[in-house]
């Protein structure tokens, strides 16, 4: 242990603790510029979240892409929480796996946090209370800083002592890693605009950390260096983006019931509506948001609003989908536009409420009893959350059916670097086939469930449209083409087959899949979707470096457009990468496209953490090598 100088003046902690650095002989510390993973281990409720986010944003402002992730327990406070920042000049936005530097602020998770460090990695900790050498590893570099002591010396209020500890370590890390403190200060300036007192105290805390590090600690092998790799991209979470998409897409009614990880969709919708949708002349709201008593009521309200011609949505997660299923069936059969944002989490049951999965696919594709099929959209990032939320409202109106935006905790609750939001002001909303009073007056034949255009989509009228023409009775029971109650078999079959035809029409309207062809001709393909995207892109590069070439198709919607069928036909074997145990997307492909299951190889990641490129490379690489070794042309799936 090599002691270094104690801090000076007012900043100086008194007592026995001191800053120190430990480096074991023979261990080569990790050296990396703009390419490392740093993880903050904190105690939930200690106020670390905003400090950690500030850290990530500062790197971003230096032109270096970052990919942060919240890893938190299903708890209010006191339990462990982590914030992982991948600094990645190459722009890999998936999780990498492994940790190069741990900011260990939670004694409870010390051992596990320490174990997670890569050999040669760095451990930063609060050295106010000295720890025995047995608490450290031999193959890492340890940086101790008496954070508690520094804060106790400067602040008297216990809450301030706690909160500013986080800012102090951000200041120290800035110096250690080469982040410009001016950048952090500018961020403070934006955050505390008009709140000068808060601004000053945060800047003071930042400098406490900076000064201490400058005077007492050596720079690390991990460095942040200014770059120009961020471009005009924005840094935003998927839930906010989806909510904004609903604002732009013209949703006026939102009904919801709080559930992690979707609650912030409704909260962001409220925020954006308050910003954009208040009539400046009257102060009246051009929106209605109701926190319902449960998920049944929230979807019920959306069904009622959709029936009555308002664009309406709800946001929920798996358990909410289960509760909503009866109404989803009603909306499907009675043909009512409904938009559901499903921010998926770990299931089944309460599962892992604060962890991510893609495990609601089948539950949503076939939600409710009887023969049903629903439209699903799979955004890959916040940019697409915005775009597809707006598109979902259009599709729901056009198709008069429930449309699901299938996002997940990983996209929804983590800020992600993505293309800026875009909107074309000349585009009008697609309100679908709504017959007006004038059209009814002109004598257009109105049969609510009649397929007049051959696309399976009937015309509807809104309540109150016309005094004598156009009213009909909506119900979940079978009816004839004129909405008259009927239990006749032919009427039922007409309806059910028309709904299938409508679903086929949907396949032509939903977002098309995105093809990423391999550099070389290949018989191998890979299908992926949603939040798996960034890890997949990195994995494709790594696999290519190993000589494994894959044509990659990113699904963006169900029903599957023809291009998916063609992709499958072109490849001897296709990996299907997804984040659930039972290969739900693979099942959907097999079921809907009647494809030989042996051609679809499962690549499944479902421990609740976001899938990593390492995992994909390992799974696909192993399989390819195994099949090459066995020389089998038509391989079997891995067990």
């Amino acid at each position, binding site marked *: 242990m090599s002691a270094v100088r104690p801090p000076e003046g007012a900043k100086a902690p008194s007592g026995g603790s001191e800053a120190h650095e430990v480096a074991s002989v023979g261990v080569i510390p990790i050296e990396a510029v703009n390419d490392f993973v740093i993880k903050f281990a904190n105690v939930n409720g200690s106020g670390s979240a905003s400090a950690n986010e500030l850290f990530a944003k500062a790197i971003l402002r230096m032109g270096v892409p970052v990919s942060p992730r919240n890893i938190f327990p299903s708890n209010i406070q006191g339990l462990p929480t982590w914030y992982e920042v991948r600094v990645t000049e190459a722009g890999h936005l998936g999780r990498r796996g492994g940790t190069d530097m741990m900011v260990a602020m939670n004694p409870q998770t010390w051992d596990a946090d320490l174990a997670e460090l890569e050999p040669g990695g760095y451990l930063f900790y609060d050295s106010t209370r000295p720890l025995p050498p047995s608490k450290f590893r031999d193959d890492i570099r340890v940086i101790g800083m008496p954070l508690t002591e520094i804060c106790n010396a400067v602040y008297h209020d216990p809450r301030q002592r706690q909160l500013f500890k986080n800012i102090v370590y951000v200041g120290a890390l800035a110096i250690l890693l080469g982040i410009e403190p001016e950048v952090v200060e500018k961020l403070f300036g934006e955050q505390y605009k008009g709140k000068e007192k808060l601004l000053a105290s945060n800047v003071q805390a930042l400098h406490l950390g900076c000064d201490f590090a400058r005077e007492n600690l050596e720079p690390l092998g991990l460095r942040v260096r200014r770059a120009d790799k961020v471009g*005009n991209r924005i840094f935003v979470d998927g839930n906010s983006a989806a909510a904004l998409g609903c604002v732009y897409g013209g949703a006026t009614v939102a009904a919801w019931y709080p559930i992690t990880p979707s609650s912030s969709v409704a909260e962001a919708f409220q925020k954006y509506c308050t910003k954009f949708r208040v009539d400046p002349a*009257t102060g009246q709201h051009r929106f209605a948001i109701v926190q319902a008593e449960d998920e049944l*009521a929230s979807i019920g309200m959306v069904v009622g609003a959709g029936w009555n011609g308002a664009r309406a949505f709800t946001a929920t997660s798996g358990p909410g989908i289960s509760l909503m299923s009866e109404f989803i069936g009603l909306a499907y059969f009675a043909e009512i536009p409904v938009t559901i944002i499903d921010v998926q989490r770990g299931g089944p049951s309460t599962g892992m409420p604060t962890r991510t999965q893609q495990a609601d696919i089948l539950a949503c594709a076939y939600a409710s009893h009887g023969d049903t099929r629903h439209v699903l959209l799979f955004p890959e990032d916040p940019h697409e959350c915005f775009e597809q939320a707006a598109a979902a409202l259009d599709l729901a109106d056009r198709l008069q059916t429930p449309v699901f935006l299938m996002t997940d905790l990983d996209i929804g609750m983590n800020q992600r670097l993505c293309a800026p939001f875009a909107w074309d002001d000349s585009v009008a909303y697609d309100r679908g086939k709504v017959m007006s009073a004038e059209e009814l007056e002109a004598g257009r034949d109105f049969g609510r469930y009649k397929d007049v255009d051959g696309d399976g989509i009937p015309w509807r009228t809104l309540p109150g*449209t*016309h005094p004598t023409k156009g009213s*009909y*009775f909506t119900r979940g029971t079978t009816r004839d083409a004129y909405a008259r109650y009927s239990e006749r078999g032919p009427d039922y079959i007409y309806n059910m087959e028309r709904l299938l035809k409508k679903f086929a029409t949907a396949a032509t309207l939903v977002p098309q899949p995105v093809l990423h062809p391999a550099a070389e001709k290949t018989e191998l393909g890979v299908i992926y979707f949603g939040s798996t995207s960034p890890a997949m892109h990195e994995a494709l590069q790594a696999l290519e470096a190993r000589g494994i070439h894959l044509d990659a198709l990113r699904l963006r919607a169900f029903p599957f457009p023809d291009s998916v069928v063609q992709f499958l036909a072109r490849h001897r074997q296709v990996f299907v990468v997804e984040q659930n145990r039972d290969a739900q997307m693979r099942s959907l492909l097999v079921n809907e496209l009647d494809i030989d299951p042996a051609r679809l190889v499962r690549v499944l990641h479902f421990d609740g953490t976001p899938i990593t490129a390492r995992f994909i490379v390992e799974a696909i690489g192993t399989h390819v090598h195994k099949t090459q070794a066995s020389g089998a042309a038509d391989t079997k799936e891995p067990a």
Partner: protein
Amino acid sequence: MTYLAKPRLHHPTLATNKVGYTRRDYEGKISTLCAGCGHDSISAAIIEACWELDIEPHRVAKLSGIGCSSKTPDYFLGASHGFNTVHGRMPSVLTGANLANRDLLYLGVSGDGDSASIGLGQFAHAMRRGVRMAYIVENNGVYGLTKGQFSATADQGSKSKKGVVNTDSPVDLVAMALQLGASYVGRGFSGNKAQLVPLIKGAISHGGAAFIDVISPCVAFNNHPGSTKSYDYVREHNEAVSRIDFISGREEITVDMGPGEVVDVRQHDGTLLRLRSLHPGYDPGDRHAAMAHMQRHQEMGEVVTGLLFVDPLASDLHTALNTSDRPLNALGPAELCPGAEALARLNASLR
């Protein structure tokens, strides 16, 4: 009777109301309920109330759940949009519909099974939210469509058609509505049209959540062994049910009572229902007094009918949410979409 078309002809001299409609214009399809069912009397009262109020039928949205009562919106206001939703969840659908277009009148029709059992939560929350609507529960204490199980409003000690004794306490929807903040609360009897029509008119005209519990005897399933026709009748009747789903018709029960009167009504099963009409001096402006009054008479074995409580200045959910005067479903992109320029500013703030 279900399969008979309703004759379109009507007398040319039928009186029209101020908006030019005859009573026939407020009718719907022919009822498929049992002859003598109290629910049909309620439908007739709704027709009468809407005609008298000069409401344009197509400006009414009528929503219901599932069950005998919930079928009735098909039997009145044929020119209105109707919606048979799911069991017990009409209130939420109506709430959403109301939020989408505040300019229509909303009629929620429900039953005791629908509102007091599976839909108790939604009933409660619609009341406390102050959704502007006339919420009518057609209350007969049994599940008719599934052939006679108890509903949650069935009295403790009453017997089902199969002789099972109900051991549970009843849910009193009127008491709940009063407690939960409904701003118009009444109770009627399906056979007392003179009282029911004004009650419904008041509910439709009310500016907030209006609730009316209407006692509506079930022709088919409120028998019990004490009934004069009990055992033999049930056997004979069951046979009929299993063959052609036929339920013998009865005369509609009607009563005529003046203010403050107490009337004993003999129901189809022979049991007596003691109704007390509110006294002319009763003050419906006091919520607490209404609750006490109702409970006092309940202990005396009487069912109080009439308008129990009204807050004439009540507001609704739209007021609470400060929603635009123009219906939300009528707003276009110009009013809803912040546009590309605002988005560019937003993008800039996210860097």
